[in-house]
């Protein structure tokens, strides 16, 4: 990896780092416009995974032999890389999870069950992915707390005027909100919601699955209490995610999963927990995946998050411009200046699944469906959309191929 940080990136060159782009799909080169669901992996990350398994593999927190030492060091080094990446104060605040969903469930159960009760309000939004919606609904049901969701406008932006009334009604104990909408690309003003949460004496939980891979996220600058994201959306392997939590809260919380690796001492009478962050990492963690996630952090940092965000912004502008004039096409979501690299749309009279299948025949990958956003889809008055999303390796030619594919879809259905 010899990429230097710069304000502009050369996506065509970056693409050469990703072996998947050598593949032909349906006899066509790949136009991959679905990075919001999961990103592809550069050779640098794949090699780190292989290198670790071939030379340093061992379990962590158990053995004392040299291989165990190597594995432990690599695992903790990955944690330190992640800490630096999101600017947490200490590696004790970085818990390795399976994915964003598990990180949010960890907070919902380990914090929620002990801190919520009847009369308390758990506040989320209609914009949320189900992973930052259903766990709160469920923990509210179990604790007798009230579950509320901030409404969204027809453009897919939060109606923050609702906060005044919510504040007057009081008893808000937790605010859970996404930093970037996974289906519309809406950039949410999370700072405002974090401030609102803290004014209410509530904690703030941020779903950063669509933010951390694409833009600079600084947990100290945000001041959030918890923030979760996934490795697989940021060029890392599947099976590993991260939960950032303020140590003052993590220290006071009960564990989520219990068992091996998270204890200090166990007896019939009494069990005590390991120190942070191991208290929250029961069982053998995704060791190699975490190490490879560390490599993904190195890779992304080498290119620079500002440059990646700028590149995606340019592509989004281009995509909106190309799509806007298309006959029968409806675009969803906020204006360009408040939108990340995600574009959702529908073609009149053609179901998104059919659109996606026709595009697939052209080698163009888009997501079709409700995007795990059913409350939002209901608000927009649709059951599904097609969604194109961009990343550091995306090219304007892929947008052109998308537009050509949509023309083909219209021909077929005309």
């Amino acid at each position, binding site marked *: 990896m010899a990429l230097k940080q710069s304000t502009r990136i050369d996506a065509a060159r970056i693409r050469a780092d990703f072996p998947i782009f050598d593949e032909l799909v349906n006899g066509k080169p790949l136009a991959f416009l679905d990075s919001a669901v999961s990103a592809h992996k550069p050779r640098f990350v794949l090699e780190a995974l292989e290198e670790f398994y071939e030379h340093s593999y061992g379990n962590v927190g158990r053995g004392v032999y040299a291989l165990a030492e190597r594995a432990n060091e690599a695992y903790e080094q990955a944690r330190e890389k992640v800490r630096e990446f999101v600017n947490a104060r200490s590696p004790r605040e970085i818990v390795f999870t399976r994915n964003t969903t598990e990180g949010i469930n960890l907070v919902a159960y380990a914090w929620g069950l002990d801190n919520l009760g009847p009369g308390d309000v758990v506040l989320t939004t209609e914009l949320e992915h189900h992973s930052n919606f259903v766990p709160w609904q469920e923990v509210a049901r179990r604790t007798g707390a009230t579950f509320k969701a901030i409404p969204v406008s027809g453009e897919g932006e939060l109606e923050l005027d609702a906060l005044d009334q919510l504040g007057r009604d009081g008893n808000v104990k937790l605010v859970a909100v996404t930093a970037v909408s996974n289906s519309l690309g809406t950039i949410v003003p999370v700072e405002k919601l974090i401030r609102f949460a803290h004014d209410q004496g509530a904690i703030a939980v941020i779903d950063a699955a669509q933010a951390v891979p694409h833009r600079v996220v600084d947990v100290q600058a945000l001041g959030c209490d918890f923030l979760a994201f996934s490795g697989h959306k940021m060029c890392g392997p599947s099976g590993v995610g991260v939960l950032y939590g303020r140590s003052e809260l993590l220290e006071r919380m009960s564990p989520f999963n219990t068992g091996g690796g998270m204890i200090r001492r166990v007896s019939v009478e009494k069990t005590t927990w390991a*120190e942070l962050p191991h208290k929250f990492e029961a069982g053998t963690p995704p060791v190699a995946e975490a190490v490879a996630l560390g490599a993904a952090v190195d890779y992304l940092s080498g290119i620079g998050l500002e440059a990646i965000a700028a590149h995606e912004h340019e592509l989004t502008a281009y995509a909106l411009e190309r799509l806007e004039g298309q006959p029968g096409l409806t675009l969803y979501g906020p204006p360009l200046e408040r939108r990340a690299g995600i574009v959702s749309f529908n073609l009149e009279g053609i179901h998104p699944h059919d659109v996606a299948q026709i595009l697939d025949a052209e080698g163009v990958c888009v997501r079709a469906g409700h995007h795990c956003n059913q409350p939002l889809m209901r608000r927009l008055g649709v059951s599904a959309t097609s969604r194109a999303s961009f990343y550091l390796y995306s090219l304007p030619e892929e947008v052109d191929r998308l537009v050509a594919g949509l023309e083909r879809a219209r021909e077929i259905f005309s």
Partner: protein
Amino acid sequence: MSADDLYRELILDHYKSPRHRGRLDPADACAEGQNPLCGDELTVTLRFGADGETIEEIAFEGQGCAISQAAASMLSEEVVGRNASEVAAIDKDDSPLVAMMIESGTPLTPIRLKCALLGLGVLKVALHKSVGTQLPEEWKGVEEVEFE
């Protein structure tokens, strides 16, 4: 006898004949801790002098690997007669066994370092509980989550 042998001898000597071994009763401060990796356990008890902050007597008891027990023994010799806040500020690398191994050119690996620092850790917890010195970061939150 090589330098390595000398260090090994010293560690084994402290392991087999630990100094300041046992439990003081009554004591001014007490704490116990474990290293979950190898199951090392240590309990420290201590008494202060008339000024309420100079460590006059100290005793460790417990079980575990040679490194954990020898490190506690060497530490006990080092801290008698010293002020609580001074002891609470001892850096990891300055605890006697760890410092000795750094000097030897074969420092402890990160995993064994945890064994070697258990004694210093529980001592700092005891001082925190009795005279309010700072709790080492890695021990924060450990006490509160016990259940009986």
